[in-house]
């Protein structure tokens, strides 16, 4: 039951003659194929060079079963209070560290966005600074701040803030570049300054993206052991690493579950917050 083909009268040959470009497109297709081929070739090279083999799969599965079996039932052992305390501590550190990093990164992100700072040099310089911040390992950030404030949660907050600044700056700048230009033009056209255009034309658009990135990093910092453990602030990640090291699988499972619940809660808050900002709109996609 399709509609009538009202297009049957169309003269294909004439159209083709008038718009030859629309029927070529071979160059793009070759380019696309070349990109895919290169990616596959690289993957092949990697597999070969890294000597990847699936040979031992069979025997190992038994041992996996042993470990996974050891994870049941998950149990806090005798450390429940310690774990909960560590979780709280971790949340506090991750929260402040992420927030501080985001606050520092915001102006940097604006400077690194091509749509805001068209000056190539400024833009280039800021982006390279951000690259450098990201390139420096978290362990090094930790050591730098241990020199200043000693071991402890404060050093963890600073190290997280520093290392996240690099990622945030990059992500924020890209969110900003991706924003729709029309509202920004709307604000500018009334005589608004660049600040106004950012505050009213840009921020409402990018806030959901930025909020989700901040919450994601908060979550990620909560579960990652690295910085908080290194700087001697304890934290849930330290306990997790410890339990893995001493092969206490039941407690590992318990800690993972604990973190999973925390992460799910953060995820829930994140969704709520973002949908409050962007408004929910769904259509039934067939």
């Amino acid at each position, binding site marked *: 039951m399709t509609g009538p083909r009202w297009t049957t009268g169309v003269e294909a040959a004439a159209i083709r003659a008038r718009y030859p470009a629309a029927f070529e497109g071979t160059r793009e297709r070759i380019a696309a194929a070349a990109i895919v081929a290169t990616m596959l070739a690289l993957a092949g090279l990697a597999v070969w060079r890294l000597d990847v083999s699936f040979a031992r799969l069979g025997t190992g599965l038994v041992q996996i079963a042993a470990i996974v079996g050891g994870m049941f039932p998950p149990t806090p052992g005798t450390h429940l209070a310690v774990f909960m305390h560590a979780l709280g501590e971790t949340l506090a550190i991750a929260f402040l560290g992420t927030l501080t990093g985001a606050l520092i990164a915001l102006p940097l992100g604006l400077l690194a966005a091509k749509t805001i700072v068209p000056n190539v040099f400024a833009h280039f310089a800021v982006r390279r600074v951000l690259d450098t911040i990201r390139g420096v390992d978290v362990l090094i950030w930790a050591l730098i701040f241990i020199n200043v404030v000693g071991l402890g949660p404060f050093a963890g907050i600073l190290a997280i803030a520093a290392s996240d600044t690099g990622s945030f700056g990059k992500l924020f700048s890209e969110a900003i570049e991706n924003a729709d230009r029309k509202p920004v033009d709307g604000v500018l056209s009334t005589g608004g300054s660049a600040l106004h255009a950012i505050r009213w034309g840009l921020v409402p658009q990018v806030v959901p993206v930025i909020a989700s990135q901040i919450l994601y990093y908060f979550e990620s910092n909560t579960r990652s052991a690295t910085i908080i453990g290194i700087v001697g602030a304890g934290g849930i990640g330290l306990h997790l690493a410890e339990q893995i090291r001493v092969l206490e699988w039941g407690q590992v499972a318990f800690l993972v579950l604990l973190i999973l619940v925390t992460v799910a809660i953060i995820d829930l808050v994140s969704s709520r917050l973002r949908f409050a900002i962007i408004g929910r709109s769904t*259509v*039934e996609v067939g």
Partner: protein
Amino acid sequence: MTANALRLPPEQAAHLLGHYRAGVAAKRRRLVLGMVVLAIAVVLAGIGGEVDIPKFLANSHRLPAYVWNLAPPLSWANLGNDIAEWFWNFDGWLLLLGDTLLIAYLGTLLGVGGAFVLCFAASANLERRPWIRFVARRLLEFCRTVPELVFALLFVMAFGLGALPGFLALAIHTMGALGKLFAEVVENIDMKPVEGTIAAGAGRLVSIRFAVLPQVLSNFASYALLRFEINVRSAAVMGFVGAGGIGSDLMVAIRKFYYTDVSAMLIMIIATVMVIDLLTEQLRHRLIGLGDRT
């Protein structure tokens, strides 16, 4: 001038203003409440996190202390030799960097694939059935919450030592992390083009391909490349599965306090990060058409 002329009589204005206030009151209240909660959280976290600003300021002159140590002894007279001395293991590190890039590439590729498949099921604007969304979101959380080390250990048992367990662990984590970020990018798109395609009878795949992808591809690309960069730097898993790589060598150098090695490797890693970032930028600007706007 004009504005005054169009001013409404006071009662009518007051009425409208009241109407407006009532309309935004709930939102206002939520905003204020949110701010208060945030402020309380900051204070509490500040206490819990033993934040000590005066101490930080008093000791801030020590900020460059560690970095200072990293500087190699360079002299003008002997610059070439000094640099050669500094990068004494350049070849070896380059090889390690290459291996790391390959592992990270494989891990990222697999992870991005998985994330790409799952993200649409996890986003509320394209997936109406809440249970599918719930399952997808929890699955992604599981993948990024179970520590890479646990996955790595399990895979070592299954596949033996080597790169394979390393990049599988990376891939799973990458999938969990990117899946969430991708889903949120998708939730943030303009739905008008999607309506446009489905109104033409397009199915899910086609509307994703033509109405969603053009909007999200640049973000996907940049997230994926950022994750690639993170995977290049992530030393822990690689070292753990015995796959080495530049990250674990850097760790060793930091722990053994081979300062000049640390700075040499850092420079190489930072250069790599810069190259990846430049590539990302090129790709993104192409995708969002920034290049041809000017």
